[in-house]
């Protein structure tokens, strides 16, 4: 039986004996694939193993060579860069799971401040790495994106690249200065930051014409960012924007970073009134009134409520005017010499109640109660015998490259004498 098996398949026999079992026809028959002695055919390397590289620039090069289109390379490599940086950022921001909850640290000062600056640096570095990886013309669209147009205006691609490098470099240096402050700014810190600001301006001036520089500074100024955030639906013309810009610059000049938190109420009122006078002069009475309304936090909240309730678009102005009329009337009652204190108190309470009813009538059953929650910061004071004014209810903000400091945004009240028990 064994002989028969070997004769049938000589390959089963050792080589030295194989010839004994191999017939002529078998010898001339093409050999079947050898399963015992010859090595297996090599497995093809998968595409990922061949294109992937730890170095991102090499990774990009391999993907390009493999015919991957720009959008896919950008998406893939950006995801890889993000994974690396996100992990480092999380280590700085998120609590370590191994640290007991009562030992976890947070805060603004000291070590926590340094972690904040390190996080900011990592985010900037990540953006820089991505820009450098995709700087090649293969990824451009010599087209400049909408965001870049807003930041850089009509500058060419090459000038935009130069400016971005300057911004990156100074951003890094500013971060290093801020990281060392521990969260407080001493005169020497401010001096360093001011020096860096002057040097940056010099570098920008070397890269741009005077007109380009003026335009770029306005576009990227923290004042412009502030005005953009605050203006709501004002829709300033270019001339009005320049006027608002100058008024804010004047406000900044009146407040120093060190003294901001130490200003007394009287000084703040004076500064506030100066700001309003300048704004009125710059915009004219009608547009001044529009700007004060549109930039008001309360008005912007009313706009949101009206939008969400799909109410007519003119309602926010109607509600705002109602608020103003209540405030004016409250002061008229307060100053009415024909009324005694109790009569004034009663009149103010009736005014407040009527005001609530009118708000509900104008805004309806959904937006109305929502707005009444917002009026809790002033309407109940009428019921307690106060007249309200919104003349200084705008938020005033002093802005630097790295921070905003605000005050104001509160109504003013005048209270009737408290009734004796």
């Amino acid at each position: 039986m064994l002989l028969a098996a070997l004769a049938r398949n000589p390959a089963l026999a050792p080589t030295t004996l194989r010839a004994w079992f191999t017939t002529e026809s078998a010898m001339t028959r093409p050999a079947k694939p050898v399963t015992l002695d010859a090595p297996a055919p090599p497995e093809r390397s998968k595409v990922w193993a061949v294109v992937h590289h730890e170095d991102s620039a090499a990774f990009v090069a391999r993907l390009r060579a493999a015919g991957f289109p720009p959008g896919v390379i950008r998406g893939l490599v950006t995801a890889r860069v993000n994974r690396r940086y996100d992990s480092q950022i999380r280590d700085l921001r998120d609590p370590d799971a191994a640290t007991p909850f009562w030992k976890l640290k947070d805060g603004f000062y000291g070590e926590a401040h340094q972690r904040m600056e390190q996080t900011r640096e990592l985010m900037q570095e990540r953006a820089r790495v991505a820009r450098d990886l995709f700087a090649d013309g293969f990824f451009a669209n010599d087209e400049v994106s909408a965001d870049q147009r807003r930041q850089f205006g009509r500058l060419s691609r090459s000038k935009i690249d130069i400016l971005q490098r300057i911004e990156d470099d100074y951003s890094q240096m500013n971060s290093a200065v801020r990281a060392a402050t521990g969260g407080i700014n001493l005169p020497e810190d401010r001096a360093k930051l001011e020096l860096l600001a002057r040097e940056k301006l010099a570098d920008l001036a070397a890269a741009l014409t005077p007109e380009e520089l003026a335009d770029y500074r306005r576009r990227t100024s923290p004042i412009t960012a502030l005005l953009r955030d605050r203006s709501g639906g004002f829709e300033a013309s270019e001339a009005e924007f320049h006027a608002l810009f100058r008024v804010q610059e004047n406000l900044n000049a009146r407040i120093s970073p060190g003294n901001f938190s130490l200003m007394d109420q009287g000084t703040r009122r004076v500064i506030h009134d100066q700001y309003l006078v300048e704004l009125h002069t710059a915009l004219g009475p009608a547009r001044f009134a529009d700007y004060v309304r549109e930039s008001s936090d309360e008005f912007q909240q009313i706009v949101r409520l009206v939008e969400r309730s799909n109410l007519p678009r003119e309602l926010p102005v109607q509600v705002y005017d109602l608020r103003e009329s209540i405030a004016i009337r409250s002061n008229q009652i307060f100053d009415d010499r024909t009324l005694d204190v109790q009569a004034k108190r009663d009149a103010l309470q009736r005014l407040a109640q009527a005001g609530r009813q009118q708000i509900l009538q104008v805004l309806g059953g959904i937006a109305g109660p929502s707005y009444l929650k917002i009026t809790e910061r002033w309407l109940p004071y009428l019921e307690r015998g106060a007249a309200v004014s919104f003349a200084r209810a705008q938020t005033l903000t002093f802005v630097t490259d790295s921070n905003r400091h605000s005050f104001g945004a509160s109504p003013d009240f005048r209270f009737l004498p408290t009734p004796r028990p």
Partner: protein
Amino acid sequence: MKTFPFGLGATLAANFALLAVIAVAQWTSIAPLPAPSRAAQAPAPRAAPGPETWTALNSDQLFELSARLAAEGFPPWAVRAIVAAQVRERFSAQRKALEEAQAAVPYWRTVTFDPKLAAEFRALAREERSAVAGVLGRDPDSAPAIYLRRHFPGLAAEKLDRLIEMQERFGEQRQAVRDLQRGMTTPDDHEKLHQIDKAMRAEFATVLTAQELEDYDLRTSRVASSMRYQHGDFELTENEFRAVYRLKAEFDEQYPSWATRSVLDYERRAAAEKFISGQIALALGPERHEDYKRATDYSYRQASVLVARAGLPAETANSLFTTQREFEQRRDVIFAQPDSREVKISALRALHVEATGRLGGLLRNDPRLLAMYRENGGSWWARLASP
């Protein structure tokens, strides 16, 4: 009959003999099979991928694309990134149209104020996300997934998956509220976000044990984060932290920091805050409570950084704080007197002069250090001069 057993035995013997011959031949004449070489067994290095590689991988069908990529060894995150890039490409014309509308907005105006444009951007982002999720399902490395894995390192995978699903579902609800805010939060928005957080926590409670849930709150809740922010480097013990947390969590539930307050609410809140402070003092004991009050005082924390940066002895910060507390109490006594405004102002200014002398002694009588302290921790002192 007798021949059968004989025949069988002969056959068997012959087979055994042949096997023996084969074995000997095998051992004596055939070299051992060469050990497989690495070179022979490792996949042959692929030639540098040619430009047709992407063409071969790509497909208009995203499911097919993702399957091909996976088959070629692309890790899940890379498959997701490529599919997302292809989805983005498909929507690029719509995106471009919206960006052109955005570019038409002057740089000094915000684009988010246009509700129609903002809504169209949001809708586009939602479509893109749905398209990717439709092919690849949930992202296992989403921000909520990573966050929860960090906070629950020992939790069973199945429980973790359920928490991740909840976190993502409630995250979408939060995002829907934020999408409508366009930078302005109304009291209703705060309330909605609060209710979403409460609902998520209630669902977490169906997965986690009471202890796991409390530990999660102690690590990640808004109240716990706020406590850490206030404490800075000051460290409570475990029991102290739990005790203070419970008191502050109760207070926050009743008087959340984001809630709009009426006049009456302000008064009730102030009274409740005073009560909670008393309870914290009882929980910590008098000595630890003094340490706690100092550590959570804003002026003290600023002054501590100033002392460190100025190279002053560390205990200077404590001395500054003790001086601050003494003069604040004396200031409050002046305010409480029935005197006229002018008399009070005069008394406060005299207090300012005295405080200046004491602070000078602590700060080397260095005008520069005094000026720095005034801006960083010394506002209480500056206000004595300008009441």
